């Protein structure tokens, strides 16, 4: 018997039906856990979301109260900023997981067979495109409605560009050297550039474009999206099995971490995965002696990934843009939030020291000493970030603004340390009974950690943006850092 190996067998529909049939015996169990998972994820989204939303609503109210010319024109840029930020995040997520994934089981059963992979992957691809265009479209439509842009056309532009970048991410998955792999970085840099333009007043006098202009941009975006999606669809037959399986364990790890309300675990998963991808590095010899050794390792990391510090430079544009838009004292929580989130990768060493006593034991010095050393490099970088924010911060004179800047830098470092060094959910503690089952009492604490510190150290500066407020805020950060470092 001879096999025609040139033509892919078009049986994916039957195969899918077959697999569904195999799974039938387990369906009861699967559905129960799916519902439980969805519930936990929903709950964690609510926990994170509500805190964030409160802050945004209050800042938004403050901004819309500002009626000066500068404020009004700066706000014109809002839909563009929302669009670019959404594209940066969506395409980064798409690149992180795939965007297409296949479980090991699927890979072994289906992809190993001469099945048409494209037909097999089509439903996933469509779902991805619908999701990203929906998210970007709705977000930008809301921004457009608030700022007087043509809503429908703006939504179409956003949806089309999201499809364009998602298809681009797919091209990068098929062909790892494709220039599309840079899309997340480019989108982030563009976001920073627009923020800088707002801060420099380049949007002064600019009014939202009219309908016809926006529609012609939309037409161009749709055309580009169509061309790229068709290209990605054509090349999809060339996708490699290993590139499909890659993202699967990652998504499962991330889902587990989010379901356990332990975002630091999600960080571990991503860090471990990027290290595995990288495989090896050009080793840098040397280090700092004794208890300062962890700081020496952080210097090696910083030289290896200068982008981690440069990202803070890009993030600097946001507080300045917010200040120009009339955010007033709310620039403080914004800068704290950004400093903390963007600097998270700088705490990679701190994180391992925090989670693994075995590593501390190896290094000999007292654990508190090691944690202190692990704070040095992120702390110094964040202090620079805070001081660089100073001109955008509230305060009557430069001296006060510098003090506020120092408070912002050290405050985001405290949030960073809280995030990386806090103890993980402890299942030996008394358990609280919840609809999700028994939950350790510090579980929710671990979900909002970091954010709680941002709130705590902002309060003094929100209440009184002067030297006293800065001093109180710095003292609070000091107490937080002290407790985290000295904890047994």
């Amino acid at each position: 018997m001879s096999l025609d190996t040139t033509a892919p067998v078009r049986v994916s529909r039957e195969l899918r039906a077959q697999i569904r049939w195999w799974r039938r015996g387990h369906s009861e169990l699967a559905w129960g856990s799916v519902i439980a998972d969805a519930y936990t994820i929903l709950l964690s989204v609510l926990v994170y979301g509500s805190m964030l939303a409160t802050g945004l609503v209050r800042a938004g109210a403050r901004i819309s109260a500002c009626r000066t010319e500068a404020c009004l024109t700066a706000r014109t840029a809002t839909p563009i900023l929302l669009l670019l930020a959404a594209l940066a995040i969506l395409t980064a997520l798409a690149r992180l997981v795939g965007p297409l994934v296949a479980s090991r089981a699927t890979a072994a059963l289906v992809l190993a067979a001469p099945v048409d992979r494209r037909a097999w992957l089509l439903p996933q691809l469509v779902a991805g495109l619908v999701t990203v265009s929906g998210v970007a479209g709705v977000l930008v439509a809301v921004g457009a409605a608030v700022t007087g842009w043509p809503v429908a056309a703006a939504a179409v532009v956003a949806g089309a560009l999201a499809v364009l970048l998602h298809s681009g991410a797919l091209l990068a998955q098929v062909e790892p050297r494709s220039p599309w792999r840079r899309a997340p970085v480019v989108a982030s840099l563009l976001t920073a550039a627009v923020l800088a333009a707002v801060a420099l007043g380049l949007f002064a006098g600019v009014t939202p474009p009219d309908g016809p202009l926006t529609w012609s941009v939309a037409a161009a975006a749709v055309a580009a999206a169509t061309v790229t999606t068709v290209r990605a669809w054509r090349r999809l037959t060339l996708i490699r099995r290993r590139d499909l399986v890659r993202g699967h364990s990652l998504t499962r790890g991330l889902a587990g971490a989010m379901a356990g309300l332990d975002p630091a675990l999600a960080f571990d998963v991503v860090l471990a995965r990027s290290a595995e991808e990288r495989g090896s590095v050009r080793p840098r010899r040397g280090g700092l002696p004794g208890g300062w050794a962890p700081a020496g390792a952080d210097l090696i990391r910083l030289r290896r990934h200068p982008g981690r510090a440069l990202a803070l430079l890009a993030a600097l544009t946001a507080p300045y843009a917010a200040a120009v838009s009339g955010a007033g004292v709310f620039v403080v929580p914004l800068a704290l939030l950004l400093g903390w989130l963007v600097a998270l990768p700088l705490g990679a060493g701190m994180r391992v020291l925090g989670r693994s006593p075995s590593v501390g034991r190896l290094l000999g010095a007292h654990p508190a000493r090691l944690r202190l050393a692990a704070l040095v490099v992120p702390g110094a970088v964040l202090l620079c970030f805070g001081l660089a924010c100073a001109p955008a911060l509230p305060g009557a004179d430069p001296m006060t603004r510098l003090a506020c800047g120092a408070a912002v830098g050290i405050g985001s470092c405290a949030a960073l340390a809280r995030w990386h060094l806090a103890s993980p959910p402890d299942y030996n503690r008394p358990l609280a009974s919840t609809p999700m089952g028994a939950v350790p009492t510090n579980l929710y604490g671990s979900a909002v950690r970091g954010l709680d510190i941002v709130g705590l150290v902002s309060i003094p500066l929100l209440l009184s943006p002067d030297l006293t407020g800065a001093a109180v805020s710095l003292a609070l950060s000091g107490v937080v850092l002290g407790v985290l470092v000295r904890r047994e």
Partner: protein
Amino acid sequence: MTLLQVAGLTRRFGDHAVLEGFDLSIAAGEAVALVGPNGSGKSTVLRCIAGTDAPSAGELLLDGEVYDERRPEVRQQVAALLDDLDFFPDLAVVEHLDLVAHAHRVPDPERVVDDVLADVGLLDQAPQLPGTLSSGQRQRLALGLLWVRPRRLLLLDEPEQRLDGAGLGWLTDRLLREKEDGVAVLFASHHPDLVDQVADRVVRLDGGR
């Protein structure tokens, strides 16, 4: 001269006593093997000595003084490889060794690290990140991290695990050399050859039964 003295070590989980009045003393240059079936308390003994577990009762003396692992001098002298091993995912193999050597202010750290790399057979893997090592290579790195630092007492929990045949021979030689250098070795093992060739004494545990 006795280096480590353990007297009346007791560890209970609920009302089940895994260890009950366990006594042990080790002199410098001596090797003691802990053997026994799974769950007999070998790891528990090592964890209580290393300070990652708290005994319910008992006394530990190092050099005749109360053994307190919170004291830096104590941590400088005791090198432990237990079952809670972890690495920095973003530091290369050789950078891990450098880090530990510098943390202990070892003189001429680069030479020491290069020697240990060759000894544990990871020269070719020096630039690799730990996530890419095979499990046997990870065990070699874990052992190498003990050799770049000063030590008077070695605590090893199944050091032979995941090593191949050649690795086992190398580990045996290495532990014999440690003894010659006056290091006291307390190790748990399931490998009869390693126990036979290295241990001066064998302590059998039965998990409180």
